[in-house]
């Protein structure tokens, strides 16, 4: 129990927690390509192993999330709105949750990959992880934003990074559509349940990028005011 008024005045910066959380979340998302490689190789053992890794990282991220929430009483005065902060945290967490969902499904329901889906699947997954990478890059700028009071050159720079984030996310949307088109063409040669499941997996892969973009969108609000 810190007794000194100055020590009690300054709490650990919630922005630091946010960055720590996002780093773990990104590690989690980075496992997704490995997961699909294992699926493509038909190596169910490896799929299982990657899934374990993802579940483990997701649990770590949850711990940080809970710590941050627990240490955020209403009496805290912060340079950013409490609501915005919690929203960003929520979006980051959704990325890890989505990765977890994908891994869980692929373990529980081993799926075959039609040949002409392989390449577009790879590029979609890669690109979606890129969006997450960019989103962490933006989150890493929070220190600098704090130093600058969320204004000035630094804010402009982050604005530019957010523009890039939106651009990559748009790309994933197109890649997702392309993959859906290929899947549609294959529908008649596949088990109907597999088709439904593939649609769902494609949607979830896209969600990785969607949530990563939303992290950026929420962060934009911090600079806006």
């Amino acid at each position, binding site marked *: 129990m*810190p007794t000194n008024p100055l*020590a009690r005045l*300054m709490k650990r*910066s919630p922005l630091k927690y946010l960055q720590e959380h996002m780093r773990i979340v990104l590690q989690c998302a980075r496992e997704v390509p490995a997961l699909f490689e294992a699926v493509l190789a038909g190596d169910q053992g490896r799929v299982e192993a990657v899934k374990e890794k993802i579940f483990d990282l997701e649990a770590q991220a949850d711990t940080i999330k809970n710590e941050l929430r627990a240490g955020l*009483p209403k009496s*805290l005065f912060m*340079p950013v709105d409490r609501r915005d902060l919690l929203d960003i945290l929520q979006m980051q967490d959704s990325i890890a949750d989505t990765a977890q969902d994908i891994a869980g499904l692929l373990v529980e329901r081993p799926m075959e990959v039609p040949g002409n889906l392989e390449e577009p699947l790879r590029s979609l997954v890669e690109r979606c992880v890129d969006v997450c990478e960019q989103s962490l890059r933006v989150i890493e700028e929070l220190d600098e934003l704090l*130093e600058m009071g969320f*204004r*000035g050159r630094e804010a402009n720079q982050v604005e530019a990074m957010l523009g890039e984030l939106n651009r990559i996310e748009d790309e994933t949307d197109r890649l997702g559509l392309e993959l859906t088109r290929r899947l549609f063409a294959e529908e008649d040669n596949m088990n109907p349940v597999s088709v439904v499941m593939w649609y769902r997996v494609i949607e979830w892969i896209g969600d990785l990028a969607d949530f990563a973009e939303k992290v950026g969108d929420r962060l934009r609000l911090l600079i806006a005011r």
Partner: protein
Amino acid sequence: MEIITQYGDVFIVIAIIFGLFMTWGIGANDVANAMGTSVGSGAITVTTAVIVAAIFEFAGAFLAGGHVTSTIRKGIIDPAPIVDNPEILVFGMLASLLAAGIWLMVASARGWPVSTTHSIVGAIVGFAMAGIGINAVQWNKIAQIVASWVVSPALGGFIAFMLMLSIRRLILNSEHPFESAKRWGPAYVFMVGFIICLVTMFKGLKHLKLEMSVGMSVVSAVVLGLVVAGIGWALIQRVRVDAGADKDFHFASVEKVFTPMMLFTACAMAFAHGSNDVANGIGPLAAVLSIVSSGGEVVQKSDLPIWVLVVGGVGIVVGLATMGYRVMRTIGTRITELTPSRGYCATLAAATTVVLASRTGLPVSTTHIAVGAVIGVGLARGIGAIDLRVIGSIIVSWLVTLPVGGILAALFFFTLKGMFS
């Protein structure tokens, strides 16, 4: 009257002991609060802080501690009703010292954010009301003092806020922040020396028989400012870009420029604290001394003997050496959210406010002003998270300290009175 002549030496010895006890307590607990922002930002080590504090607390007490001392000594109580019973004032001052000292010990052990200043002022008012009468308290002076307790943290916060904005504009938001920091750094160091020196020496240092006109004070402040700016410049020149750290945090090298600058604000803060808080311990001592040495003259015209200021300075340094450094180490490890640039703003703002108050003879709380200054930096969106509950606990500590100090002092007053008469 006879009591004074009979027990005069005893009173002086007791007063010195109580005064040392009080200043020891200030050195043990309060100094750490003053230096907390410097140590916490990692700009200076605990060892450096202790050395800086020892030297500059003493200097502050010695050079600029006179005004507040005289307020505590003769500004709060109107001695007119007790000209015929000077011993009452002696008992009262001794009781106040003891009350404040004990209350501080209890409060620090419990970890309450209690101010030494509030304790002693509350104690003196309490004794005066109980021992002499409600009218013996100079209520308009008290009103001024209490107002300063509210205004000073706000002023500290405001100055810190403005400093923060200027650093952002001139340094952080420039095209080459590191070069800008090196360019403007000496100017910011100049400001530290100039402000502290100007406020301290404005129109001279009376107790050192150093008369100065306004112009002379300004000139000497400029000279001192330039000297420290020169030293600052030399230190800043040695700072190199740390490319590795910059990759992680773009402003890492810029912050490194502020590190040597913090050394100067730490000195300023110790000086400011010495100039204000030492009076809490030696004000009552000085009062007792002048009554006894004048043979029972309550209306205190005599000057403050310099050795009394020295006693205060010694008490603080001893407190620092015995316990203060440990408290400082604890605080240093807890306040890590302040970067050197923020620490600079908060510390300079607090030091300026405290020295200004000292100069006007207002006893203020250094700790509360430091809290105000940090909040000022926070308002400039400069700190990750500030827990505003501290403000509530500070207000509660006011509401408790004043009456408790007063009641304790009244109690001790009647005890002492009973013992000696």
